[in-house]
């Protein structure tokens, strides 16, 4: 005779299932970036993911806990982190990012569910500070030799400065490539990138940021399967859109056009796959809306008034930091509560 307290049924959904589906949703994004950047992109994704898995397993061993590779969360961290790095990023730096992401971003706090910040973004923030040049060196997409040779900087020897890629860029020159992202070109040259380049992935950007359209489709899959809280991307993108519109309408031409804000940089990747990280986002419905709106707003403020061209990463980390407070002060409305 078995004895258990009710309920005796379960929905059947578990943590690995959720995490696995997030990985599935990221696979098309990975495939697209490999098609764009070839071997370098593939090697970067594999290296970063393996370094995350290694870091997770080593943490398990050192802390004497069960093997947590099977919950797939380290895999997500690795894939997501790789997608936020530039395709020409030296692989050894990618591995450093992966180790930092898992150790500093997650294991230190006690593993999955206990981490206050999105591990992938912790890793990304670390390498942004550590390797400021490498992380802003962009490579052109669709280079003719991309499936047969690496971008030279990818294979930089560990602990060395990245190999110079200017000769390779010159040899693989694609029309219009300048080595700057759409946001940077706006910020420094007031240049408006054509919309179609930003949708098809021709604009220079991080490995997984190039096609906003593909990201939205993959996000919709997760939303349809109820593996993602749709309110977060809606709140992030919605607030960014409203602010960008307001600045453009009332501030005039010194502010970028709306499509540039929405389609460029990490906004879509961040709103759909980073801000929605369950462990680091709030649970209460009102807190979720506030969290999304804060991320969207801070992104715009950093992009327009900060020194950086890109603001999504720090905006999400800021939102992560606020999440517990938002949950505390915006508790769900209790059924039958007395109206004051």
């Amino acid at each position, binding site marked *: *005779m078995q004895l258990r307290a*009710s*309920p*005796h049924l379960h929905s059947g*959904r578990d943590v690995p299932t959720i995490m696995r589906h997030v990985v599935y949703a990221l696979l098309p994004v990975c495939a697209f970036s490999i098609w764009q950047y070839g071997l370098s992109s593939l090697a970067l994704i594999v290296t970063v993911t393996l370094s995350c898995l290694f870091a997770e397993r080593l943490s398990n061993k050192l802390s004497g806990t069960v093997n947590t590779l099977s919950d797939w969360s380290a895999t997500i961290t690795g894939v997501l982190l790789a997608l936020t790095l530039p395709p020409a990023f030296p692989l050894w730096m990618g591995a450093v990012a992966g180790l930092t992401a898992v150790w500093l971003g997650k294991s230190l706090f006690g593993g999955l569910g206990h981490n206050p910040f999105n591990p992938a973004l912790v890793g990304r923030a670390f390498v942004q500070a550590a390797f400021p040049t490498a992380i802003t060196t962009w490579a052109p997409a669709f280079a003719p030799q991309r499936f047969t040779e690496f971008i030279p900087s990818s294979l930089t020897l560990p602990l060395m400065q990245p190999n110079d890629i200017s000769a390779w860029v010159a040899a693989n020159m694609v029309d219009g490539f300048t080595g700057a992202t759409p946001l940077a070109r706006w910020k420094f040259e007031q240049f408006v990138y054509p919309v179609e380049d930003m949708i098809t992935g021709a604009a220079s950007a991080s490995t997984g940021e190039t096609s906003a359209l593909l990201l939205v489709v993959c996000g919709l899959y997760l939303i349809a399967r109820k593996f993602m809280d749709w309110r977060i991307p809606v709140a992030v993108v919605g607030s960014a859109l409203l602010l960008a519109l307001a600045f453009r309408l009332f501030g005039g031409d010194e502010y970028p056009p709306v499509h540039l804000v929405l389609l460029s940089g990490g906004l879509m990747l961040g709103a759909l796959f980073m801000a929605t990280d369950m462990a680091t986002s709030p649970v209460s*419905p009102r807190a979720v809306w506030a969290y999304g709106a804060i991320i969207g707003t801070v992104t715009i403020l950093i992009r327009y008034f900060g020194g950086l061209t890109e603001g999504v990463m720090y905006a999400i980390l800021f939102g992560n930091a606020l999440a517990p407070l938002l949950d505390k002060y915006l508790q769900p409305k209790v059924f039958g509560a007395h109206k004051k």
Partner: protein
Amino acid sequence: MDRPVYSEAGSAKGLSLLPAPPAHPPLVEGQHPSHGLASLFSSWRRGTFQRGVHPAPHKGTLDQPIKRMPFPRKLVLPLAQHIGKPSVPLVAVGEEVARGQLIARADGALSAPIHAPADGVIEAITPRPNTRGAWTDAIVLRVYEASTQEVRCGEPLDLDALDHTQLIAAIQQIGMVGLGGAAFPSHAKLNVPADKQVHTLIVNGCECEPYLTCDYKLMREWPAELLAGIRIALRASGATRAIIGVEDNKLDAMAAIRPHLSADGSITLQAVATKYPQGAEKMLIKSLLGLDVPNGGLPSQLGLVVHNVGTLALLGRLLPRGQGLIERVVTLAGPGIKKPGDYWIPFGTTLRSILDWAGDPDCKEREVILGGPMMGQAASTLDIPVSKGTSGILVFDKRMLEPITKQSWACIHCSECVNACPMGLNPSQLGMLSAKLEFDEMAEHYHLGDCFECGCCSYVCPSHIPLVQQFRAAKAFLRERKPT
């Protein structure tokens, strides 16, 4: 007829939360003037409540009629089958009793009598496991092998000749209690205190628990008795109208009831969304009337009283005949049951005799659940008898239990529990507090007291955290500490 009459104004007095009762209740099935688009629209607008879950129904034997289970050799009748004071035995060991004979009387106002479910001889009056597994006094009845199914005790009552006090007393005398699970004495619930007014009787025909089909079958097979019971309950409570709320997956039951509704529109039938826990009192009131029962409050504060369809069907059947409540419909289901279905089972039948007759002897590592799978209790021993509050007996095997117990993870803040809790609580936060034994914080700032333990949070939790189980423990801790 001596029924108390309440004016319209009187029935709304002191109910600041409630607007005047609507002249025509919304979405009345069968009464609704059908004008094209409007009726189409109303069929979409099933009453519902926020959040909740949709477990698979597993209602496998819907097409079968209610059947009878043979008498077991022995019946164990706990004296406390209901909420309130235990009954007082009126028989001595060795005494012969007939099916339907009064064998224990009610002790005071909040208590119910017990009648013999079969012909036999009293073998002992001694502690035995009750439905919760605790040993309490029980009457053990050895059943005669030739015991008849016929009930020869009880004098038919002329209900119209009874005044209000007599009617309440008559309901108590047949031992009627709430059959939905709580087993609260029905006469006490229907006897509205003089300073309170009840204007609407809510009849709960939701049966939102998976597997259970006993209420559905009673509605389908005994609609006339159900309506008779509703009319008795209306008289006893002084309510002026009744609304039968049925989940919209039970269309047969609704079709069976509809021809029996009163022509004057005082009893109406309303479909509500099929969703767990639709059958919870507060959720059903929200779905039918759009009203929130204030937290910590009772439906009577809104002028409402809620009764289960099973209770009222048996009330309508037994009271006019003056017969005692001696058996009920129980759903037998689950992979460990060979003869699933709904059966009339006399009170006192032990799980052992039911499983000997209907169970699968090959079922290993089984769990026997009394009630539904979401809120029912696992039985600690097979000596537990079916009592007035037992709506189902489910036997689950190892395969069904593994997914829940195999592995658990830390809370990943996925917010599924928050999006499932019908009470709008934050089970995630409560779970973390209870892991830290912060029970006072849970009660003071996170509304622990509003949790009615429906189990939606544990059902959805992808980390397999036993949330509601911890809340129960926290509530028990706070309850026990209170007197000191």
